[in-house]
């Protein structure tokens, strides 16, 4: 495997980075999108199973958000955990106070987070 990859790298020369993006980034993620096209064959828009599929997708995304805050990467890790959740809470609060305004939610959340980051990093 390693020898094959090394040969491929040598053979592709300057195009190797692009080949890496296609073979090890694009293909492993794209197969799921393609698979879905065949999985939804014959399913109508209001099929009952899609209510469940949609609930799974929503719960999954909520999990992604929680994980981004629980196990933050890089610069976000300098912000103490209380303020990461506090900033999210402030954003949600602003979203509802300003009549479900997404922009208000994002702006208020960001203000709280960046202020906390400034204080934390001095």
């Amino acid at each position, binding site marked *: 495997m*390693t020898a094959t990859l090394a040969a491929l790298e040598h053979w592709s020369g300057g195009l190797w*980075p692009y080949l*890496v*993006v*296609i073979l*090890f*980034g694009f293909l*492993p*993620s*794209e*197969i*799921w*999108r*393609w*698979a*879905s*096209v065949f*999985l*939804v064959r014959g399913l*109508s*828009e209001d*099929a009952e199973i*899609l209510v*469940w599929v*949609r*609930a*799974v*997708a*929503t*719960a*999954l*995304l*909520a*999990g*992604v*958000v*929680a*994980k*981004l*805050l*629980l196990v*933050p*990467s*890089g*610069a*976000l890790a*300098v912000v103490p955990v209380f303020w*990461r959740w506090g*900033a*999210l809470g402030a*954003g949600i609060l602003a*979203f509802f106070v300003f009549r479900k305004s*997404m*922009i208000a*939610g*994002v702006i208020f*959340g960001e203000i709280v*987070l*960046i202020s906390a*980051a400034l204080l934390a990093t001095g």
Partner: protein
Amino acid sequence: MPDDSSPSLKSPRQAALAGMKAAAGLPSFMLMASLIGVGGLCRDVGYPMGAAVASTILVWAGPAQMVLFGSIAAGVALPLIAVAICVSSIRFVPMCMSILPMMREPAIPARDGQPAQKGTPTWLLLILAHFVAVTAWVEGMRRLPAMPKPERIPYFLAFASTVMLAAAFSTGAGYYLIAKLPPALAAGLLFTSPIYFTVALAAGARQSVDWLALVLGFGAAPLVALVVPAGFDLMVGGIGMGTLAYAIHRLQRARRSSGAGT
């Protein structure tokens, strides 16, 4: 039933313009903020700027792109990186499965002198599927149901390609800019995805089942992460909490329909 002759029906071109307009604000800004870091990661491994931009256009999933370049930097073997990306991208299945039927036109056989209508061709569905990622999904789920069916594909394609273009531009710019960013601003950029996804999900929640899935998925994530091996926890939590939300929704519906008698 002549139900699609509404006078307010937009032409494909008008629908596409509406999609571009919707993309130009918050969604593009959010994607630009979250993908600017990918450019820097790509530079760190010594790849050209084009590879960073190609990853945004082809992989079209911020976390997977960060895993790709971050793992190459850490010296992880390429086949292992592909496995990690493959596992994390399973989340596209429920996303694509819930949004594609909203856009697909069914094939209608010829009848009563009406010519047969071809349904949305598979190649077009494959292209639509490629554009599905968190941003296009949350915005699509929120906006598409209110639109007449013929407007949905041009709207979605225009929306998604506009945010992709903005994200690709930002990835390329990040390749040169990211090195010297104040830490507080860098933290703010990384926070854009979680805060945007949260308010977009809240804005898109229409039924009680959406709210249940949102709250359960969010609340269960810390517990699931403790029990399930990393890499699979999101999938297990998503299927588990999504199913629980759906089960509660079914119970409520059953109780409501039998509630009048009891």
